[in-house]
């Protein structure tokens, strides 16, 4: 197997630095390394093996071994393998760990997050500002540590937030938010502008931080599933699917019934269609192009109504469970799905031709918000935004889950990096999703169970669940505790990866184009803030 080859390669590469190594859950390789060589080893792996940093998180393992474990997860996309380097640190803060952010730019945000949530400093981190907190949390309180009690009152503090300031003649700062004029989620944007063109943008998020990861700890896994469905409203199904897959994987369930696998594909694709239609409609609203926005909004409602008809929830809540689906939602509804999809297909193609033939609209979106390929690669930009900037990655192809390995579909690839390009990727993905659903309806077995019993969870086992949400690569890490509870649940949504990319894409564009660029990424605030 390919994962084994990678396992051997890294074992050889790090040689004596490896304290312990393991290949589990078919495609996950783990290497325990000493805290003193973490930086060296990570960079070694990053430089020598074609991989990207997809997750960096800590885990307070005090109840197990009185340590704080830091995990560096790299995805080897060409060979369906997740490489995790982890290091156990003394929990008292005596050991500091070296930052890898200067060599692996994507690491910077994760390191800031660990600093806020665990109080672990990284030596030489280029950006040491608070990420999650807003200067109102006491400096010595870290919510994800096991000694933090969720019911404890936290004294309010006030420190000023730091923003990168740009000075010069005629350079002004424009603060926007966190409360916006429309009904959207909160986020603060600090623009530095010279007249209309934007010189620099800094986004301060985490206004909808709900402490989701902390709330899941010590909960029964079925309760944590409900939390996973509430990470981000329009990614309900893919988030719960990632969680379920992680649970299935760590409990050694390698086979879920075919009918369940195919049903999961249908729901995942319906969610993708719904999300993309909303995004394209939003782009039209932002350019005041009302006709197609109304059309696309209408089609989005069709899909939502179909979702409701199938599962009773427009956002596909309470559909998934570890081991399969809660019920056979598709049975006797194949015809309804096919009718709806065909109707959508026809209407969507007509609307797209209207959009693409409007020169004024294309003028608005073309060459707006260019995200260069090099930045996209460095920041690990995923999903449609990444694919529009030449980062051709899709979890459905590279880490196939559910029934995707049995289906034929294309991943759109574009290289113009602008708003138009991101829109085109989404348009093509909607068409691909329609094809996928049609294929599934043809291939799906007529009868059969839709779930397997997963039994009791093995305590202190762990695994990753990966899915491709409408916004991109979605990675959930689950570690179990005793009595079917969750010990650590780490969620990394595509929004977390893509937010910094937005700040780069707006540079040199005018302030009036920011909403349009923002919409072309359409990132989730709740999905980022957790």
């Amino acid at each position, binding site marked *: 197997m390919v994962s084994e080859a990678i396992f051997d390669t890294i074992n050889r590469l790090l040689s004596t630095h490896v304290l312990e190594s393991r290949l589990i859950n078919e495609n996950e390789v783990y290497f325990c390394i000493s805290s003193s060589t973490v930086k060296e080893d990570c960079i070694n792996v990053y430089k020598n093996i074609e991989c990207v940093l997809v997750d960096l998180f800590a885990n307070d393992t005090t109840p197990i071994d009185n340590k704080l474990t830091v995990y560096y997860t790299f995805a080897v996309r060409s060979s369906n393998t997740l490489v995790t380097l982890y290091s156990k640190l003394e929990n008292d803060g005596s050991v500091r760990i070296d930052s890898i952010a200067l060599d692996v730019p994507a690491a910077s945000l994760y390191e800031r997050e660990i600093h806020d949530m665990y109080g672990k400093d990284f030596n030489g981190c280029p950006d040491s500002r608070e990420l999650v907190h807003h200067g109102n949390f006491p400096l010595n309180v870290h919510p994800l540590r096991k000694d933090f009690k969720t019911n404890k009152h936290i004294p309010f503090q006030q420190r000023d937030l730091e923003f990168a300031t740009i000075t010069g003649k005629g350079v002004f700062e424009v603060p*926007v938010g966190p409360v916006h004029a429309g009904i959207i989620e909160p986020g603060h944007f600090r623009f530095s502008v010279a007249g*209309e063109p934007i010189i620099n943008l800094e986004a301060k998020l985490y206004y909808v931080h709900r402490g989701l990861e902390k709330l899941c700890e010590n909960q029964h896994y079925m309760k944590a599933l409900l939390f996973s469905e509430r990470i981000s409203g329009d990614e309900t199904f893919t988030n719960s699917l990632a969680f379920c897959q992680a649970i299935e994987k760590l409990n050694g369930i390698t086979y879920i019934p075919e009918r369940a696998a195919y049903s999961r594909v249908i729901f995942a694709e319906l969610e993708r269609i719904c999300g993309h239609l909303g995004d394209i409609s939003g782009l039209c609203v932002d350019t005041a*192009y009302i*006709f197609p*926005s*109304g059309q696309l909004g209408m089609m989005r409602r069709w899909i939502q109504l179909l979702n409701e008809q199938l599962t009773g929830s427009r956002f596909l809540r309470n559909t998934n469970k570890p081991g399969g689906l809660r019920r056979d939602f598709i049975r006797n509804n194949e015809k309804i799905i096919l009718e709806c999809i065909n109707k959508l297909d026809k209407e969507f193609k007509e609307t797209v031709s209207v959009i693409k033939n409007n020169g*004024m609209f294309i003028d608005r979106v073309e060459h707006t918000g260019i995200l260069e390929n090099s930045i996209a690669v460095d920041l690990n930009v995923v999903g449609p935004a990444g694919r529009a900037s030449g980062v051709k990655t899709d979890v459905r192809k590279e880490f196939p889950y559910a029934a995707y390995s049995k289906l034929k579909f294309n991943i759109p690839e574009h290289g113009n990096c602008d708003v138009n390009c991101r829109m085109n990727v989404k348009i093509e993905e909607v068409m691909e999703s329609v094809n996928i659903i049609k294929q599934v309806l043809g291939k799906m077995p007529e009868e059969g169970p839709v779930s397997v019993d997963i039994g009791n969870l093995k305590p202190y086992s762990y695994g990753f669940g990966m899915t491709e949400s409408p916004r991109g690569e979605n990675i959930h890490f689950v570690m179990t505790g005793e009595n079917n509870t969750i010990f650590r649940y780490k969620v990394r949504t595509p929004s977390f990866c893509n937010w910094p990319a937005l700040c780069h894409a707006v540079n040199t564009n005018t302030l*009036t184009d920011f*909403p349009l660029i923002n919409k072309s990424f359409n990132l989730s605030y709740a999905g980022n803030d957790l």
Partner: protein
Amino acid sequence: MFMSILKFIFQMFFLLLIAPLFTGIIRKIKSKIQHKIGASVFQPYYDLIKLLKKDLVVSSTSSWIYNVAPYVYFITSLAAVMCLPVVYQFKGFSFYTDLLVIVYLLVAGRIFMALAGLDTGSTFGGMGSSRELLVSALVEPALFLIIITVGANPEIASTSVFSIYDYAVKNSSSTFSTINILLFAAMLMVMIAESSRIPVDDPSTHLELTMVHEAMTLEYSGRHLAFIEMGTYIKQLVFMTFMANILIPVGLNMENILAGLGIYLLKLIIITFLVGFIEINTVKFRLFSLPNYAVIALIIAVLGFLTRFVLR
């Protein structure tokens, strides 16, 4: 004399009454196109009544300009529309009813609004003010050229509203002359820019960063906002009246004042449909593409101006 003043006042109230209707009609057209039922065409009236009932929220850092601006804006707009011949002309004002006066009345209102936008010191107010003044400066050349072309007719040789109107009444045969069609097109573009409509501005947007006119008035609430909204509706009416009565001089000089109002209303509704149709088919321009838009309006006006002398 008493009767003329009475008729004049009647006409003023009539204009105040119909001004919000056209915005309601445009919104209705836009909703219908999107397969939506849409709000009633009288929604702008309900909104105004609601706003008039609401309390004011005034920033403690603002000065008297902030409180005065909505009224100045409203009154200047109203004065401008009263200068124009609608159905009944009140000759008592003839000494100042010049088209250029109308333009400067509107500019005075706008200057106050721009100052008020800056006054509160909020981010968007200043941004809106600067953009609004940019738009108005860009379309001003076209507007002046239209007025000059209308006045440059040797038989009028004046920009006085009454001379122009009298001429239009006498020569209704020249209704669809090339000049009028060109000027009408240019004026339509100017009107769209001046009344903050798509493709220059999006009056229904919720995105504070893309707003032009709305950003300037973002801080206003209650009664103040009602007067600003009303001022905008009337300003729109000024341009529509100019187009309806001077550029399409059909059915003018009706002896019966009610029949005259009917025809006037009909023409305005046709123009409204035209604006609605444009709004559906266009997309908001990039801010820095607006000079192109203004230049197109100017060139159409220049063509009209040249036609005036070439085709004679």
